[in-house]
């Protein structure tokens, strides 16, 4: 088995083997298990460590929507870049966003054409930029799930406290719970259980997942990112399925408090409210699935300070990002995968971020297989 070559790199290969054996023991022959890992960080780790190679064939991992740049529809990138073209505006974003394709190229390509675009590592850096250049208006392109949204909230609270008025946030923060519900409600989607996100759960805690067990009768186990964490979470899920239980369990208790992070939740509540609806790539419009700034922060809301075009673009026809995001297709089943769409020249956002299923698959499976084949 090819993936086994990684096992010796693991901190405790013996425990890995034991967990893998336990998984094999727990699966019932003749039953096909479909388990979704919600978080893109887990997707990355699963491919990097070749964990699928340790699993029985009737246990299938479905890669979920937990990659922020992957689920953002192209129109929002275009909207952000429209702001970047306004005179006097400095557009700031995280590194991942810089390479996300818009209709007329990525932020990086717009920068090369002369737009004032800067990469930042923290929203606080964008705020500092505004303070140090009062003649400009700094827009921060905010993106991310509940892991990242508190940092934007605290930055906005700081901007208000300091009275910085040449700073605003173009808010694209999304929330994971409505996306999970949308996936559970989507026709034809059959899932047995979820590996719950690690870092999102440090903020929201474990309670918000209870509807999955109560309303849908499916287990969810919040998991750490190490290979052993992921395998242990699968063991916990399979034990629940074998016992006919559906509970929220926390495998990652060393980092994730059951109640979440209360100061973070308070900051989110003070600064943001839910949008009535928001478009997700692949999942369509999902009600109450994204955040916008409350009226008290209208002055710092790019969408209210400026006229945002509200662009809607459909993905390039041949790209099947949506199907991959829903787990209907595996990355290499997309017609563009590895040909028109590569990490160097991504057509879709799933090829951009290391958390995107396509980039992870391309990096760890596709290249390895290509290097191993004798070639023409």
């Amino acid at each position: 088995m090819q993936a086994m070559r990684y096992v010796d790199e693991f901190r405790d290969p013996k425990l890995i083997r034991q967990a893998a054996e336990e998984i094999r023991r727990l699966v019932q022959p003749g039953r096909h298990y479909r388990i979704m890992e919600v978080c893109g960080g887990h997707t990355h780790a699963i491919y990097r460590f070749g964990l699928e190679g340790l699993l029985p064939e009737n246990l299938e991992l479905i890669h979920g929507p937990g990659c922020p740049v992957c689920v953002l529809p192209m129109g929002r990138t275009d909207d952000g870049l429209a702001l970047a073209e306004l005179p006097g505006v400095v557009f700031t974003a995280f590194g991942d966003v810089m390479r996300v394709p818009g209709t007329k190229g990525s932020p990086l390509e717009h920068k090369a054409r002369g737009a004032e675009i800067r990469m930042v590592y923290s929203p606080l850096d964008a705020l500092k930029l505004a303070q140090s250049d009062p003649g400009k208006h700094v827009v921060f392109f905010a993106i991310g799930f509940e892991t990242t949204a508190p940092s934007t909230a605290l930055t906005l609270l700081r901007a208000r406290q300091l009275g910085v008025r040449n700073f605003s946030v173009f808010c694209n923060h999304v929330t994971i719970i409505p996306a999970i519900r949308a996936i559970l409600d989507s026709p034809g989607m059959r899932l047995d259980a979820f590996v719950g996100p690690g870092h999102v759960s440090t903020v929201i805690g474990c309670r918000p997942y209870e509807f999955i067990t109560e309303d849908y009768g499916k287990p969810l186990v919040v998991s750490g990112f190490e290979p052993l964490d992921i395998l242990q979470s699968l063991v916990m899920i399979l034990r629940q399925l074998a016992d006919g239980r559906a509970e929220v369990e926390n495998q990652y208790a060393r980092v994730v408090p059951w109640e979440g992070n209360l100061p973070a939740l308070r900051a989110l509540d003070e600064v943001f409210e839910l949008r009535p609806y928001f478009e997700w790539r692949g999942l369509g419009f999902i009600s109450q699935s994204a955040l916008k700034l409350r009226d008290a922060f209208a002055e710092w809301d790019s969408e209210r300070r400026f006229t945002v075009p509200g662009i809607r673009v459909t993905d390039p026809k041949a790209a099947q990002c949506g199907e991959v995001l829903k787990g209907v297709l595996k990355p290499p089943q997309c017609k563009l995968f590895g040909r028109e769409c590569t990490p160097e020249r991504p057509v879709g956002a799933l090829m951009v971020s290391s958390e995107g299923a396509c980039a992870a698959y391309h990096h760890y499976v596709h290249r390895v297989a290509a290097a191993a084949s004798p070639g023409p």
Partner: protein
Amino acid sequence: MCLAIPGRIIEMTADLPLAVVEVSGVRRQVNVDLLREDGIGPGDWVLIHVGFAMSKISEDGAQEQMRMLAMLGEDQQAMDEIQGYDFGREP
């Protein structure tokens, strides 16, 4: 995107809620507002995300996380991020 970088708190600054953290020998200021109720102080280990300490972890947990980042090929990216934080530096 959801990089969580382990660092050790060296000192709490007078200008709360910032603290000086050290990650693999590099010192930068990060915001510790989200952990103020956890009673953190010098010597504690935290996970850092986009300039904010998100959770308190054990020293073992920090080493594990660093190893994990290296295995995922994200250790350099993590150091670039830590070195890139500008907000805690003098203007």
